[in-house]
């Protein structure tokens, strides 16, 4: 694409050099044009000429009659950026430039990170919104973006941010209650939504109970919760360790329905401890001291 464009510009330059001295006069161009809108270019002089409009990812070529108004229809130019206009007439070449700006906001893309985080994390969620027009041009004109994070409980958090160079960003806190939160960015009636999973944090006050079960010990934790009272999800590994005279037994048990339960050998005087990750729970000494 780039080489083709270079070749085309080279051709234009050669044509312009060969036709130098042809009768043309000034071009009248708009300074800015909104993407996708119709506009016109006024030429002067007489005779036939060729008009080239070269811009980002787009080149137009038109055979024109000098002295007439050259009209470009809606949608002819839809990529925002800086455009160069070259009018190659019978004996001379004229050039000029104009800018195509983005149209009205038509789409919004929200990047929210992370998609999963622990509850009660201050500034843990970042949201970045990009505003685009209908042609996927980044809308550089400042716009107010409203961010809203609504969880399963409590009042939603709201921030309104002015875009800078087409981008607006903010940070939000995760809620104290677990669950999926809707993170919405909105400009006018355009919105984009992401789902943020707020998950329980580290377990708090991990406790277990031990009782005899035949020749073995039945060990079961109390329902495992984080410091905000959220139930730690099933599948979380709880490690039971039993240290007895000259030996040790361990077992990694996943939480199921909120509790971890297992059986271990029964030894008089054994010490049984419980942990999950780097969080320690209580310790139980079994049998006689």
């Amino acid at each position: 694409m780039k080489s083709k464009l270079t070749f085309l510009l080279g051709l234009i330059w050669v044509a312009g050099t060969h036709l130098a001295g042809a009768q043309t006069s000034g071009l009248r161009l708009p300074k800015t044009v909104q993407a996708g809108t119709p506009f016109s270019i006024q030429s002067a002089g007489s005779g036939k000429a060729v008009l080239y409009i070269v811009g980002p990812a787009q080149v137009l070529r038109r055979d024109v009659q000098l002295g007439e108004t050259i009209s470009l229809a809606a949608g002819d130019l839809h990529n925002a950026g800086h455009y160069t206009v070259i009018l190659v007439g019978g004996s001379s070449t004229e050039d000029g430039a104009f800018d195509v700006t983005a149209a009205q906001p038509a789409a919004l893309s929200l990047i929210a990170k992370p998609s999963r985080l622990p509850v009660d994390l201050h500034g843990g969620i970042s949201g970045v919104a990009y505003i685009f027009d209908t042609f996927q041009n980044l809308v550089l004109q400042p716009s107010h973006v409203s961010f809203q994070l609504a969880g399963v409980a409590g009042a939603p958090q709201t921030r309104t941010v002015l875009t800078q160079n087409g981008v607006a960003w903010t940070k939000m806190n995760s809620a104290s209650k677990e669950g999926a939160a809707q993170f919405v960015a909105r400009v006018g009636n355009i919105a984009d939504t992401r789902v943020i999973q707020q998950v329980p944090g580290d377990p708090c006050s991990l406790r277990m109970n031990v009782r005899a079960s035949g020749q073995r010990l039945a060990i079961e934790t109390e329902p495992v919760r984080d410091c905000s009272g959220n139930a730690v999800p099933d599948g979380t590994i709880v490690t039971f360790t039993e240290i007895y005279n000259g030996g040790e037994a361990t077992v990694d048990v996943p939480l199921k329905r909120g509790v971890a339960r297992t059986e271990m050998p029964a030894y008089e005087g054994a010490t049984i401890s419980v942990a999950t990750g780097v969080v320690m729970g209580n310790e139980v000494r079994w049998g006689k001291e």
Partner: protein
Amino acid sequence: MTSGRLLAFVIALATVVLIVAGTFGQVQSVLAKAGAGSGTDLLRSPSSPQAAVENLADEIARRDWDTAYSNLGNKSEFTETDFIRDLSGSYSSLRSHASLDSFDVRPQHASADDAQVRLNLRWSTVVGMFLDTRDLRVARTGDRWAVMWPIVKEPRVPPQVIPVNYLRWDVIYRGSEDDWGAQDVESPHVRIVDMHPVDRGGGVVILGELLNEDVVPAFVTVKATLLAKDESAIATEDSFDKISHILLPRQVTPFLIEFHNVALSQVDSVHMQPSSTLIAASADPVVEIEDQQLNLGPQPTLSGKLLNQSGQVVNVAHVLGTFYDNSGQLIWVSDGYVERALLPETPVSFAVSVPPDIASKVKSERAVTTTYSSNRFQ
């Protein structure tokens, strides 16, 4: 003309010699590959206890179960199927897919009609070698010696129903049709909670522990890069199988990364790269590790028993031992595989070797296990 006939005769003779040598050599090679050592070994008469045991080992190497069983002196005590299951396992396991790499025979005691011989069978598997030691009684019957095989009958699990609250995680990843801003599912958050570089055996060893601090299962690896003073990379290695790759939420795995031929004095810093990928996984089976003991001696081991608390057969179990000194610092990580399948509620012994100089410093240890079941992922 005469010299030409002579040359033709010499060439023909040489050709015949080479064909014979090649054929004979090939036979020798095949026999050696079969574990026989040489062709004459196959024809050895069991005229001594040692020869009888060697013959048996040769037959085991060739998986010639019929001959091996028929030559046993105590075959009336068990069936050939029991004998095959003893050596190959009843359920699919490392043992089922192992081949006998080598063996050695050590006479322990002998009288005119009776002998005690130790047979060390070294089996080769995809995860390394394992040693199977059998103390055999060899009895004389006429001019022949016959091996009394000490059968180890693998327990059979009686038909039953074991209820399991099945728990697994499934993952829906980002699709190609999704908006470019749509985030993919977040990779699990993992954290290295301990790490020590150690100068050992002419190389550097990185020891550490990794925690899955997320609420989803993770497939984890740890890579380490040793950096020199000028920040150039000396070497990069990863933990390979000295780690438990599947970490459930809040689970901790030890890891060990070895760098050969690098001195710790060359290393200025270590760049650690833990990586995690969200995977579909199951929370079962649960395996209890009981009777863990550090056995000191010339060849220290961490031994214990694995007890599969779930209702599913575990085909391969990998045990990782983490060792701490009296200040609670991690000083070594070692691992081993269990060659027999873990049947529900049936203890299976394991032993993981520990370097003797490390064993003397160990104050406490922790064992973890990862399992593989052929009829289910994980």
